[in-house]
């Protein structure tokens, strides 16, 4: 009986460990950027770009939120279907982001921004790499710890996002000032445009670094959570050895080993 007790206790920690966190969809964080487009004449491509930059950040947040919802729904028969739907939605979202970036690169206005274009390429690459990794890392956490991780990552993402909006808004205002300055020669405008382009590219590099750091940190946390699950497994293993030493019946030992295997399965 006590072993089932252990299984339950550790099971609580390893709960939903096998559920890889999947999620997609457009969140609300990037909504503010699009509104600038109506007032400033910096071009549609830029606004589109702003929106695209926000989406991976939203996706990372969703990775954390989805497993919590999945736990709520875990007793429902439908949860497997929902899992599949979420997976499809996520894949669709990634494909859409990449397609939109490809489209953007064809835009004439965008063509002029060499540095921004390069940064976007890097961003796109990292996004692809991180998608699976982050999902797996979060999937290994217990419900309680996921909630803590969600609160933390969400708070930091919102704070970062506010700053990114500020940088974006600043770039758009600067492009607009350059375009509307009639006293300035075309040559000077080109110099300034180039400077703003580099700065905007720096903003995108920052977004890339932010996403990468979030991912790395998640891996680190995940490693730690694994050690928690393992301490439960070690404990059971030690007990098993003790029981074998005092000569428990074969059936009972097999039952306990089964329980241990089940636990190990959680962590996979």
């Amino acid at each position, binding site marked *: 009986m006590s072993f089932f007790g252990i299984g339950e206790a550790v099971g609580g920690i390893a709960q939903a460990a096998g559920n890889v966190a999947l999620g997609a969809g457009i969140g609300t964080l990037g909504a503010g950027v699009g509104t600038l487009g109506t007032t400033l004449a910096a071009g549609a491509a830029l606004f589109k770009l702003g929106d695209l930059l926000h989406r991976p950040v939203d996706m990372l947040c969703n990775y954390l939120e989805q497993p919590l919802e999945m736990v709520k729904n875990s007793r429902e028969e439908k949860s497997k279907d929902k899992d599949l739907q979420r997976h499809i939605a996520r894949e669709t979202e990634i494909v859409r982001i990449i397609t939109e970036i490809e489209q953007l690169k064809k835009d004439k206005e965008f063509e002029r921004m060499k540095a921004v274009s390069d940064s976007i390429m890097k961003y796109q690459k990292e996004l692809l790499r991180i998608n699976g990794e982050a999902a797996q890392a979060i999937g290994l956490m217990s419900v309680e710890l996921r909630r803590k991780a969600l609160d933390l990552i969400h708070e930091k993402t919102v704070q970062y996002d506010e700053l990114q909006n500020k*940088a974006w808004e600043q770039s758009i205002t600067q492009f607009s000032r350059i375009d509307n300055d009639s006293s300035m020669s075309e040559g000077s405008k080109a110099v300034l445009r180039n400077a703003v382009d580099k700065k905007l590219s720096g903003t995108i590099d920052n977004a890339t670094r*932010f996403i990468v750091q979030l991912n790395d940190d998640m891996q680190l946390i995940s490693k730690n959570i694994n050690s928690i699950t393992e301490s439960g497994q070690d404990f059971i293993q030690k007990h098993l050895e003790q029981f074998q030493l005092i000569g428990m019946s074969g059936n009972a030992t097999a039952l306990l080993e089964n329980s241990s295997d089940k636990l190990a399965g959680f962590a996979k």
Partner: protein
Amino acid sequence: MQTKKEIFATLQVLKQGRAEMVQDFLDHKPDIYAPSFKYEDSPALLNLAREKYFMTWLISHWQLFSHEATFFTDKQKETEAIFATVFLQLLGKWAIIKTDHAGQLNLGIQLIQDMQNTLNEFIKVGDNSDAMRKKFEVEIEKNRVLFEREIKKLSEMEL
């Protein structure tokens, strides 16, 4: 058969635990007060720092008991079983473990130590993120000033 003496040992540990917590607040222990200022703009980090304090407080019960138990050498096993059940119930309040079976005391202690480590990692993640945000903030301001400087220089050249 549980005697009053064995139960008293556990009650004594709980009493000392409460007294330590009150004393920590009275002494303005940095573990409690420093994060309130450091993380005043970050409720998530503040919660983690608070939780970290509580983890340290919880594990201190085990240390207190180890000391207390030395006075009960004749019935140490029975004394430990009573304490273990109560201690695991206490850990259950923090959702660390879901059982109060005395045989799982070691697991409870291991889990609480792992939880302390995980909370430290979470706090590091938050601090990393804050550091990055501060750098970005400075960069935005620097860019604004450089742009103004550049536009001023070019406008003067045009004149």
